[in-house]
């Protein structure tokens, strides 16, 4: 720490604008061995996943929704994490925070996974039991409880699907718009098919004043729209595939809890990606510690909020002695899936909290990353527990969830599908990093203008300028 230097070592980096373009161009062209190997591995996993899916389909068909619990879980996990990831770029662009600059493209690239979500959702549409009870048995409802009371046209499937579709489109639009200036640069520097692709996508971008203004406004509007859409879709999908499959489980905090978990885990995912780029990707001179440090505070807040929402749910159900509530608690939290809940609690709250509690740890790049990783695992267990449980909770048309089944363990095909889903996501993302500049060049350059080190009386401090 230099004399009178009052910012943490490596906290802020100001890359030289002219160097960036060149360097990024090279990085985009290069194909390191590590990435090639990773692509191969994830590709194999992807194939496994498809195999598992086919076998499951052959074994059980699409008649009953029970066997598809694990498929639903992995879909929900991917949707939860990748759906919320682009929000990081959007939200921090709203707050005009400078530390977001290296982080925004990393988060936007997850938009490409929206397509995967849409495709993976199709089988789930088939297995979801209809809202109207086909034949009404003893103590059964004619219409099972769901957020679509009298089932408007095509509900719930059509609406969920449309929501996911719009979500994918909207996020792709955000990615395209925010990558446009970079690709316009790429037109000149890149070679081969990239050159064609970039010149195609960049269109008539020449960076005129007007274009920049439209760019800013467009990103803002799309971002706001995406945020609202995401919250809505998460609400519908989550409650359709978890809550309304458990007869009589009425829990108004579940959608917010799901959304909160998605924010927490997606931020974690982004931090992990950033860390990999910074450590092994050779992006050290673009990614300072400041993104980790600033994001860590938000991650801590989200972690605490997660615990808070969970407790609010638990204590309300514990206090109310209604039979259905007791059964839900027993099933999801204490008896059948008790272990899963304990693990979920540990990874989503206890571990990240204990890591992020310490300011020195938060000022490193590995601390927040570890917390993020554990949040990611927590979200994964959360989804397994919730959706596998919900898919196997017995008669969906019953008046209330009366008879508690035991936990459902995965068979081989389930394992295949789960790893396959993860592999697919990783594969697509890695491929995307080869296609698009993974660092948002224009934002980095813009940032270099607005931040500098300056002297006040005797000490040197960071100066942040905030344009109106």
């Amino acid at each position: 720490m230099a004399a009178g230097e009052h910012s943490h070592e490596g906290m802020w980096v100001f890359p030289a604008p002219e160097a960036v373009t060149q360097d990024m161009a090279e990085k985009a062209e290069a194909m390191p061995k590590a990435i090639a190997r990773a692509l191969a591995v994830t590709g194999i996993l992807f194939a496994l996943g498809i195999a598992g899916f086919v076998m499951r389909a052959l074994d059980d068909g699409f008649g009953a929704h029970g066997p598809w619990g694990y498929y639903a879980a992995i879909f929900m996990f991917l949707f939860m994490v990748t759906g919320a990831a682009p929000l990081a770029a959007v939200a921090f662009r709203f707050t005009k925070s400078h530390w977001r600059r290296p982080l925004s493209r990393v988060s936007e690239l997850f938009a490409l996974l929206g397509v995967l979500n849409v495709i993976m959702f199709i089988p789930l549409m088939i297995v979801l039991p209809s809202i109207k009870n086909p034949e009404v048995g003893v103590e059964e409802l004619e219409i099972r409880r769901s957020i679509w009371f009298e089932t408007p046209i095509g509900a719930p499937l059509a609406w969920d699907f449309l929501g996911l579709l719009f979500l994918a489109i909207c996020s792709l639009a955000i990615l395209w718009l925010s990558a446009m200036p970079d690709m316009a640069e790429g037109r000149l520097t890149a070679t081969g098919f990239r050159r064609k692709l970039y010149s195609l996508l960049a269109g008539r971008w020449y960076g005129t004043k007007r274009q920049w203004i439209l760019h800013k406004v467009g990103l803002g509007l799309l971002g706001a729209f995406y945020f609202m859409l995401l919250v809505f879709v998460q609400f519908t999908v989550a409650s359709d595939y978890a809550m309304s499959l458990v007869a009589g489980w009425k829990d108004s905090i579940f959608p917010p809890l799901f959304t909160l978990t998605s924010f927490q885990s997606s931020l974690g995912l982004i931090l992990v990606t950033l860390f990999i780029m910074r450590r092994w990707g050779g992006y050290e001179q673009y990614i300072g510690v400041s993104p980790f440090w600033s994001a860590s505070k938000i991650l801590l807040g989200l972690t605490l909020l997660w615990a808070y929402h969970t407790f609010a749910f638990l204590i309300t159900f514990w206090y109310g002695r209604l039979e259905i509530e007791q059964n839900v608690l027993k099933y999801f939290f204490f008896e059948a899936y008790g272990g899963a809940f304990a693990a979920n609690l540990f990874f989503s709250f206890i571990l990240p909290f204990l890591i992020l509690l310490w300011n020195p740890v938060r000022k490193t790049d590995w601390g927040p990353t570890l917390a993020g990783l554990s949040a990611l695992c927590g979200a994964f267990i959360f989804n397994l527990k919730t959706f596998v449980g919900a898919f196997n909770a017995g008669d969906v048309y019953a008046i209330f969830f009366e008879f508690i089944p035991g936990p459902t363990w995965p068979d081989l095909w389930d394992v295949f599908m789960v790893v396959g889903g993860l592999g697919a996501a990783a594969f697509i993302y890695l491929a995307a990093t080869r296609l698009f500049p993974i660092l948002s060049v224009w934002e980095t350059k813009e940032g270099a203008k607005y931040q500098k080190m300056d002297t006040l009386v005797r000490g040197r401090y960071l100066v942040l300028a905030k344009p109106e």
Partner: protein
Amino acid sequence: MTTPKPRIDHKWGMVVDLDRCTGCQACVVACQSENNLPINTKDVFLQRRAYEWIRIERYWEGEFPNVKARFIPIMCQHCENAPCEPVCPVFATYHNDEGLNVQVYNRCIGTRYCANNCPYQVRFFNYWEPVWPERMRHQLNPDVTIRSRGVMERCSFCIQRIRRAELTVERQEQGKLDHKTMKERNFLPACAMACPTNALQFGDQGDASGPVHHYFEEANHRLEERHHRTERVEEHPSRVYRLLEEMGTKPNVIYLKRVEMFPVKKEA
């Protein structure tokens, strides 16, 4: 501080036979005079602040001309899982080990939370200081405290009578206190005693020879097996049921369904 040990492990319970209830309101009057309830004057009623530790609810069933009146007496259900108990900040109401849901007037600070949390609407708040006309002073029951304003009150299964019975047994039978001797004192809550048709039956759930024993046996048995079942089966029909069973409150009051000799014709 510890709760007093029970002399014998009572578990009081009441069985209400709706087939016998004629809705004559005798129980209501008996309760009023036994438990020193303030007089429900007209304007007290109009303010909707009437005290009815036990009340008869009347429902009409069917369309004129073939219409039947249904009566259901409702008093404190003395639930095992009483929602009203844990919300009291000062332990003014709790579950004693005789299966009674007791109210400690001296502790009560009148938050009215318990009344809000009672699904059966059987808790009453003293909005005014209770007053009686001068000449009625002497009919007040010396065994029952008069509740001051600002406290909750509700049916106690006439706990004063239970205690008196126990005391007399101890005095006369040299304290050899068991179900038999207790029954010989044949004490009853005022309402049960006043009921002309024996619609209200009161006794010890544990006392095999008592009037309520087998009903509770049956009810608890049904509850048990429902809990240990893993899928739905056709249950054999029975008259025994409890109010708001889905609330999981496990009342100590059991109702017996009315047997329909001439059921009301429902319009198709």
